[in-house]
């Protein structure tokens, strides 16, 4: 599948509807495409362009700026080992060497079986739990070589399937605004007045 599926188009339209301008939905829709196919395909970017009112080049222009979007298939599990200061001070380089050894790939490589891609991430906001890594954006803290080995074994054996979805899916919970509760997005040019609660009186 390359263009967005029927269900994803429905989700895409719901997401677009939350923004005063459709193009604001570009990044969320790119995530949707990556969730569907594991990476972002040219056809999906063209489709997103149709949905948000942009050319496929403009969508690619946006997508290519952001680290998380992949335009070629990557492993089922993307392992990001943090390499910034706090993790480096606590042995991230050594962990990376071990990981390269264990997986038999170099930094940036994917294993032959398509299971693992190994990357170096920049600061992942878990600096006190160094060295840390993320597998498909799920954390592992204070990782030792032995921890890394058992993580790889567990992933291979499918023991973490409930916790860690395949690459492409980030959050598994979506926001849903009920029709009767949502205010609705209004294009900025259609609003000229102050919101009603700004009249100098209490709202309640």
């Amino acid at each position, binding site marked *: 599948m390359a263009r967005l599926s029927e269900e994803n188009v429905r989700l895409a339209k719901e997401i677009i509807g939350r923004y005063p301008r459709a193009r604001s939905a570009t990044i969320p829709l790119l995530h949707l495409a990556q969730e569907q196919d594991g990476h972002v395909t040219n056809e999906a970017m063209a489709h997103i362009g149709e949905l*948000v009112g942009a050319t496929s080049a403009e969508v690619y222009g946006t997508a290519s700026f952001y680290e998380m979007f992949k335009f070629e298939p990557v492993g089922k599990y993307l392992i990001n080992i943090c390499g910034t200061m706090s993790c480096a001070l606590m042995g991230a380089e050594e962990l990376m060497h071990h990981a390269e050894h264990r997986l038999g790939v170099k930094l940036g490589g994917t294993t032959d079986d398509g299971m693992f891609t190994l990357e170096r991430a920049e600061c992942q906001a878990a600096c006190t739990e160094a060295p840390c890594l993320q597998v498909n954006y799920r954390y592992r803290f204070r990782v030792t070589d032995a921890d890394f080995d058992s993580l790889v074994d567990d992933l291979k054996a499918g023991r973490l399937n409930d916790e860690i979805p395949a690459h492409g899916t980030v959050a598994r919970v979506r926001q849903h605004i009920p029709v009767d509760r*949502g205010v609705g997005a209004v294009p900025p040019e259609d609003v000229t007045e102050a919101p*009603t609660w700004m009249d100098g009186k209490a709202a309640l």
Partner: protein
Amino acid sequence: MNTPNSTNTYPHAPGFVAGERPRIVTSRFEHADSYTLERYLATDGYAGLRAALGRPANEVHDEVKNATVLGRGGAGFPAGTKWGLTPQGVFPRYLVVNGDESEPGTYKDRLLMERDPHQLIEGCLIACYAAGLSQCFLYIRGEMALAQERVATALNEAYAAGYVGKNILGSKFSLDIVLHWGAGAYVVGEETALIESLEGNRGMPRLKPPYFPAAIGLYGQPTIVNNVETLANLPWLMRNGAEAYTAIGTKTSPGTRMVAVSGHVKRPGVYEIINGVTTFRDLIYNEEYCGGIRNGNKLMAFVPGGGSAPWFTEDQLDVPFEGPQAGAAGSMLGSGAVMVMDETTDIPAAALTLTRFYAHESCGKCTPCREGGTWLERILSRIVDGKGTDADLAQLVEVGTSICPGDFPHASSKRLGLDAVPFPYKMNTICFVGPSAYAPINSALVLFPEEFAARVTKRTMIPVTAVGAAS
């Protein structure tokens, strides 16, 4: 008072360490289910919103102004004042919540989003009510899967229960909060880049002026960009008032702030400390906090405010968490991230981990940063690998000066007989990413010149000879 028993860690909140101190934003962290609406409502949840809606919006705004709630994202600009920068009579105005936390060493927003998403939502509601903002976009860093899930769940709960959406709590206040998420780009933490990203573009900072998106922001409209922790302060503030808020901390830096201390300390952790009062010495050495340097080692240097901040050494340990004092000492408090290096640290290599970060994260818009960052990284790599020459050291300074003209801020050093150069720097770039690539190098070079001198080889000049002369 400062006994090891006074601190607690919770298995459900890895990294966070509680203590016997006032807790404004982390009060619910002790509960394993702190992220649920049920727990939130059982612990004063949405009482601050109710208090706010019972008063006219301008009064709520004044309360926040009077409390001097300093921005917790890096610049430390007071939130109430920032809200007041929106031009009169121009609508709609938007709130963009900066949850794109990615400054090296920093994490507190992630914990606040994961552990107490309703507190953040309540803070957004109070801000929008007070400043007349008609829609809120909550931008969460792309890599933070759990934070996105927790905030999405909390928003779904809050909509269903009538705390967000149309006629909130039956009042005339209506607001949508839209969960938005990024896709991996540090520079998007800069507020105009955040807005570009939210408009569906490459996340590159906008030209300045205007200096604040409060004038021209999202879709060209007045836009307030506030940090997650800043907004998380508002529910407590509305429940307890500005007087109670300013009773904690100092007059210029009231309240508390979250600080992550990482690196070579005995107990790295995220602590909620007293603003303006707690010093770096307290934080690094007290049993209540980190309990000193690991293995009884000596402190070599520490980064006081995230990777962009010039480094401090033991000479600055008594500086408190007070912006102007940290600035006079040659650095900044930034995003509340302290990274500690002990005597075993390879200083040039440590600086390289930060410079590599900023070189990698340059968006490419400004030449001094795009080219300079990469030059700095390559030259420093060469030095770290033992292949640098003394000419490389001079080149580092030359490239650094092309990003930041004039004297770059640094700390004083008793050991070297150096005076401090106060913060901030001048810069030839639109945003702080370029200067940040040079900050660790300048700190390391100025405070530890011997570490570099030992690393480089003297370059011997080879005289130019006529072709064919050497035979």
